[in-house]
């Protein structure tokens, strides 16, 4: 099934993404997942195929599309490539660049965006700290103004694409405590005082590298400040809304893949003298999986449409994320179950998807924080 918002342009991108993933991701999916990294050339290959920055403005080397185009490309890359880690690693620009595009100066956009869109540079977003995750306004990494520089001190953690990032959009404290003292600063690789602390071992998303980033007296040119000083919190919150829609789309894709894998398996696997699919209880399981995927897809598609119409969607995006993450965890669990012992083995794709799925109720704002947003917007 596709999203209701899709037209011919999405269909064409789906076809391209599928072909790309079949040729360039699927053959290596297991190896890259086990190795915990995919080759850097993949960024430029994806860009050459017009699939890396499809949702960015053409003026910056993008495809001139919108969030919906990015969403369906990611879905096809997941479905055909079967390595969620690779796709989310490739996609970290999707949370790193939007603040620059939204609030950066023309010079900053021209300097940072095209080289990421072309696949030459890798971009990451660094908000989370060891002492502040859900509580973004409690972040402690400081940036002290010193002439034409900010001096950054602090540690960021769980940063997707962190080990290889060439530019990192970092949330820093430039003012007093709370959300009113937060700013966004682009820190470039090679800036003295900026180091990758360590690569982190994870439950899922193996092919995507996740790192701790350390800033010690790191002198960043003041011209790398994105937007106004102390107004970064709003940018972070706006960025979260689209990230959550994107994560919901990831969940729909992962669940769809788990469902397809399970559907094929129960047709070919025999027990008690017939294919598993011949048991009504097995077929009903598939029917429940398909129904929940369809529901999450419908809601995710609706948020995309409303967002593109210009409606503010923080609560609906939070609802879509929770609906999609719950659905995805359920569907992947059922898929593992239908595979029996094989579903617990690393050779099966569903085993990996089950682990990948666990990230989504945590990353990009936890399930509980989504509910907090919904409560606030609903007024209770």
């Amino acid at each position, binding site marked *: 099934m596709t999203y209701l918002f899709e037209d*011919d*342009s999405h*269909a*064409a*991108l789906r*076809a*391209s993404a599928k*072909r*790309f993933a079949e*040729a360039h991701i699927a053959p290596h999916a297991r190896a890259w997942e086990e190795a915990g990294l995919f080759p850097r050339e993949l960024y430029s290959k994806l860009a*050459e*195929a*017009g*699939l890396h920055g*499809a949702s960015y403005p*053409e003026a910056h080397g993008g*495809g*001139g*599309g919108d969030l919906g*185009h990015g969403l369906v490309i990611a879905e096809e890359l997941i479905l055909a490539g079967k390595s969620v880690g690779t796709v989310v690693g490739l996609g970290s620009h999707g949370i790193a660049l939007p603040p620059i595009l939204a609030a950066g100066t023309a010079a900053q956009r021209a300097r940072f965006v095209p080289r990421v869109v072309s696949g030459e540079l890798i971009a990451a977003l660094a908000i989370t700290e060891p002492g502040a995750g859900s509580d973004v306004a409690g972040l402690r990494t400081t940036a002290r103004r010193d002439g034409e520089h900010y001096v950054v001190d602090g540690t960021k953690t769980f940063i997707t694409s962190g080990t290889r990032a060439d530019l990192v959009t970092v949330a820093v404290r430039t003012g007093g405590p709370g959300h009113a003292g937060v700013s966004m600063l682009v820190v470039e690789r090679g800036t003295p005082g900026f180091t990758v602390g360590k690569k982190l071992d994870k439950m899922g998303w193996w092919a995507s590298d996740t790192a701790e980033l350390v800033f010690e007296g790191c002198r960043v040119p003041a011209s790398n400040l994105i937007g106004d000083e102390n107004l970064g919190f709003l940018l972070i919150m706006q960025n979260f809304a689209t990230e959550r829609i994107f994560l919901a789309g990831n969940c729909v894709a992962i669940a769809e893949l788990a469902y397809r894998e399970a559907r094929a398996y129960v047709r*070919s*696997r*025999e027990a008690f003298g017939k*294919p598993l699919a011949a048991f009504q209880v097995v077929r009903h399981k598939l029917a429940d999986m398909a129904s929940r995927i369809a529901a999450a897809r419908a809601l995710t598609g609706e948020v995309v449409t409303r967002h593109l119409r210009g409606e503010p969607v923080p609560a609906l995006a939070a609802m879509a994320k929770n609906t999609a993450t719950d659905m995805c965890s359920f569907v992947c669990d059922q898929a593992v179950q239908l595979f029996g012992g094989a579903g617990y083995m690393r050779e099966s794709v569903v085993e990996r998807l089950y682990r990948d799925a666990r990230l989504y109720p945590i990353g990009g704002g936890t399930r509980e924080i989504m509910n907090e947003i919904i409560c606030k917007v609903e007024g209770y």
Partner: protein
Amino acid sequence: MKILVPLKRVADPDNANKIKIPAGGATIDTTGLEWKPNPFDEYALEAALRLTENGATPKTRGGEVIVVTFGPKECETTLRAALATGADRAIRVDAKDDELDGSIVAKALRAIVDKEKPDAVVMGKQAVDGDSNQIGQMLAQHLGWPQATFAATIEEEDGALLVGREVDGGVITLRVKLPALVTVDLRIVAPTSVYSKQTKRDFKYNDGVRFAALPAIMAAKKKPLAELKLAELVSDTALKVQYSRFEAPPSRKAGIKVKDVAELVTRLKNEAKVI
């Protein structure tokens, strides 16, 4: 060079399990199927694009590629995709799938060639649905043109194409004078398979069919797409090929585990009868 490329949409083999054959087997039920371009036709389009450009500067067109398909309105998706990839204009011959067979399509293509006067027709060697492998040959006959089938390489010369065909044990190279008809095989999209006169001989293409980026997809919506009626192209629209019956392939049996090599050999010999 002006090149005509016929395109056909085929049922997506990834969804082959959705193909239903109603009782009696008189037809195939195509409702709910997903479609994609016939891969050999995509290769033909890629070859035609390479022949009408300098590989180093593909954004500047050095010729014209016209794509044509036969079918209902939905087939325009296939044409728009081809336009997004680089074709210059498109023609859809309005027809229902059950009004067409290879003979009618070949005759209709002949009428289109008479009108458009391309220097070459470049097409897939066969469609992966019916696997008939006929239309190129029939069309060349109707046109009285030289043909080179199953091309693995094409090199443009003055007034001719040098076509390499892979055959058992070697390569046959044919020189066909233009206008000519070429049907292509899958190796035609390898990095050094096709050279226009403008493309330097040391230039290497990316392997495979090129991708359409979103701006090109959007621009394709504005490229010309003409509609023709089948009856305008062929006078005799009676089908020459009649299908008598369709049957699904026998469903694959589940595999078994053997306990040792001896059992494997016994079974290969006595049951599978392959050794």
